[in-house]
């Protein structure tokens, strides 16, 4: 870094920030902290502006980061890296947690998203018979059998006979919407049943 004569920035020697942090840690030295603060706070703000593109959040990051630097100064271990690396780590974590807090949680998988109207690609690969038996005998068979007849019939045609929803509707002479709603009801039942077996 070049430092011009008229620059207000202090000249930085190697080890300066590490020393400053040590003073802060040992003596709660406010002037050493102020030196660190005056150097890093505006840079953190510029860094925050780049990351958030928003002044308020950038300032929040500066505040949380610098507060942590003050409070946690005693945790700084110069043998493990520079002061700037340590401060960067704190800022990164503060920023990450700020973003996490803002994000809304949870997205749920809906059966509708998955349902490509019965036309699934058929692949050449060996069918996994072992799996089918397991799936049926161990988990689903009892619940499958317990489905109302109308629902079971539709499920059987779609999943065992691999017919499309449209084909099933024509075969049973019922509206397509009814086929879909029966499948949905059947899936809901199977889900509930599986959910109960969990506990």
């Amino acid at each position, binding site marked *: 870094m070049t430092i011009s004569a008229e620059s207000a920035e202090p000249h930085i020697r190697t080890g300066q920030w590490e020393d400053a942090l040590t003073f802060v840690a040992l003596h709660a030295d406010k002037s050493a902290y102020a030196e660190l603060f005056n150097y890093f706070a505006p840079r953190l703000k510029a860094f925050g502006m780049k990351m958030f593109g928003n002044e308020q959040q950038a300032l929040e990051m500066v505040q949380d980061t610098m507060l942590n630097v003050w409070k946690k100064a*005693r945790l700084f271990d110069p043998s493990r890296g520079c002061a700037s*690396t340590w401060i960067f780590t704190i800022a990164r974590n503060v920023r990450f947690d700020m973003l996490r807090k803002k994000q809304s949680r949870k997205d749920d998988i809906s059966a509708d998203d998955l349902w490509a109207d019965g036309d699934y690609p058929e692949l050449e*690969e060996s069918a996994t018979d072992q799996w089918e038996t397991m799936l049926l005998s161990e988990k689903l068979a009892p619940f499958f059998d317990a489905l109302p007849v109308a629902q079971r019939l539709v499920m059987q045609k779609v999943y065992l006979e691999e017919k499309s929803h449209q084909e099933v509707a024509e075969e049973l002479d019922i509206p397509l919407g009814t086929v879909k709603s029966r499948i949905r009801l059947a899936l809901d039942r199977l889900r509930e049943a599986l959910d109960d077996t969990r506990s």
Partner: protein
Amino acid sequence: MEQYVAGTLSADVALAVATHIDLCPHCQRVCQDIHNDQADVLASMPLEQDDTDDFSALLAEITGQPQLDKPRQKAARELVKVQINGREFAIPRALSRLAEQQGKWLQLGGIATAKLPAGDKMHVSLLYIDKGTEIPNHTHLGLEMTLVLSGTICDENGEYGAGDLLINTPADTHTPHTRADEDCLCLSVLSAPLKFNKGLVRLLNPLQQFFY
């Protein structure tokens, strides 16, 4: 890796990367170097002329607060282990806290999964595959990341051992399986469900939140 260090990866993806780094000395070094570089960028960031914020109030407020005491030397955290199918697996550091809060194992044949309370966008779980077991052929509706924690997974593209990260996208279809004589534990991160391609196993598609 840059994004991981900078903290711009999504949390779920970052978790898989962090766990890999725990298992991989090479990436630990790479990571440290990137970290130092990024810190240097921050420390040598030039200031704009108009950065004239007055931080003195903040400075006073901060130094008015008490500092934290140095904690006693932390007792080396006991290694977290998970048990499944009569086996016990040690869990890498990055996963320890989450693995302690794992959900119940759900078992289907030779496969068992336990949800980890990490996902908001993604579905994060431990995935156990018994020896000689195959996961039926499937396509991916989103990103599938599988980090092998122990054992080996094989699929059409190769073999993956502990620390290896498999990444599959919607363009990929595969049938992963374990070796005949070795079971396998993985961390699985899914951005969208799998789509099973064959026969009755397709029932798993709408029901799969119970299995994955």
